[in-house]
């Protein structure tokens, strides 16, 4: 199979990429790892006239700055899996990266690409919304930052302006006595998720839940923040019974859109199951001082 013909250009910096994209107009697009864009081009789901390759742009280092883990947009999934700094500060990100595609995809696919592609059934949008992440972007109108949750507007659609690129992802480190977990249902190994859930739980000094965030992906056109549905957990101990009652509220409240993954009722039931797993794991990690004590 062949993509439509296009002109191939390489940018040496973000600024040069912005200039090239602006110069070539609507049919121009940036490419990083290309693990979603190339198949879309090959199968003619998208036709572009110019591809601006970011391969020569300096990826930059993963750093912790002012209580945030800062990931350059060109950070690859394999880097999330193996980076010592990621594993020790937000281990859930390493674990989740290992769920993406297969090893070959993870060797090329990037953080910025995953978010900009805005496929609701992939892992990073769901997880980074739950973690309260922000993206830094650069476009013809300059640089800005915005919450990850605000960039998704629908299936494969974002609120980014034409030619605006994500240059970095900032994730706040978890407060003390917090735990995070990601759980997903896939029909086959390496497949897209049918249901995915990211949970973040924070406990107070008495072990009672003082903050909980729960985001469900793959069941609608964008990640759904259902934290309000689990507000019943606040102020109490996160027991199995409390979780069971919270996730039953999630399943009742959540607005599931029909997908090819199964009937809405099936998805609803699976949301309940996987939300329960993610919450229990996050709470257990919170009480164990995660991430420092995580194995």
């Amino acid at each position, binding site marked *: 199979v062949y993509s439509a013909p*296009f002109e191939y250009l390489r940018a040496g910096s973000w600024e040069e990429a912005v200039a090239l994209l602006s110069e070539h107009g609507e049919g121009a697009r940036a490419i990083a790892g290309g693990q979603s864009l190339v198949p879309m081009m090959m199968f003619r789901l998208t036709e572009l006239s110019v591809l601006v390759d970011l391969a020569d742009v300096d990826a930059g280092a993963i750093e912790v700055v002012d209580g945030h883990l800062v990931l350059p947009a060109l950070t690859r999934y394999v880097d999330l899996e193996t980076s010592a700094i990621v594993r020790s500060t937000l281990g859930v990100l390493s674990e989740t990266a290992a769920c993406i595609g297969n090893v070959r995809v993870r060797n090329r696919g990037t953080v910025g690409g995953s978010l900009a592609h805005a496929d609701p059934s992939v892992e990073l949008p769901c997880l980074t919304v739950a973690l309260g992440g922000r993206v830094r972007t650069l476009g013809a109108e300059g640089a800005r930052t915005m919450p990850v949750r605000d960039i998704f507007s629908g299936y494969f659609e974002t609120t980014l302006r034409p030619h605006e690129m994500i240059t970095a992802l900032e994730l706040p480190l978890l407060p003390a006595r917090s735990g995070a977990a990601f759980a997903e249902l896939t029909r086959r190994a390496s497949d897209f998720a049918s249901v995915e859930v990211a949970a973040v739980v924070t406990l107070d000094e008495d072990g009672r839940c003082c903050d909980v965030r729960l985001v469900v992906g793959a069941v609608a056109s964008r990640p759904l923040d259902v934290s309000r549905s689990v507000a019943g957990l606040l102020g109490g101990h996160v027991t199995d019974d409390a979780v069971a009652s919270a996730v039953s509220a999630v399943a009742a409240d959540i607005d599931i859109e029909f997908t090819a993954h199964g009937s809405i009722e099936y998805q609803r039931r699976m949301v309940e199951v996987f939300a329960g797993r993610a919450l229990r794991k996050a709470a257990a990690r919170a009480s164990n001082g995660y991430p420092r004590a995580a194995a």
Partner: protein
Amino acid sequence: VNARRRIRTEVNGRMIEADVAANQSLTEVLRTVAGATDVKYGCGEGVCGTCCIVLNGEPVNSCLVFAVQADGAVITTLNGLVGDDGRLHPLQEAFLAHGAAQCGFCTAGMVLTAQWLLKRDRSLDREQLRAGLAGNLCRCTGYVKILDAVEDYARRSVPSGD
């Protein structure tokens, strides 16, 4: 648009120069220009692993790379594991010994991926190897013999006494 562009790439130790169109995949250019027909075109969307090559030291799906993106790259295909004297790589020998190759279409991807996984971490157990090879599809063997071969190679390549 789609002007041909000259690329220079090292494939299995040999420099290849080719004039390629922007929309030609690396799989196609490796097979037709570099003669690397050990690179197999399978699904074309990064799901099956048959087009696996080692690009600058890491396995990737060559079907999801445009050849122009590989300008200046160093590439190893399955044949690059074979010694100058024609001797098979020990992992290939293990595949033979265990009957892990039947039709052979998945073999290049399996061997290159498994070899990289073990190069990164020799101590991987069977479950970890299974997870690492999860994106390499085989429609013949049922995977058991492939895992047997990879595990056998992994154990044998650990220094003795370990």
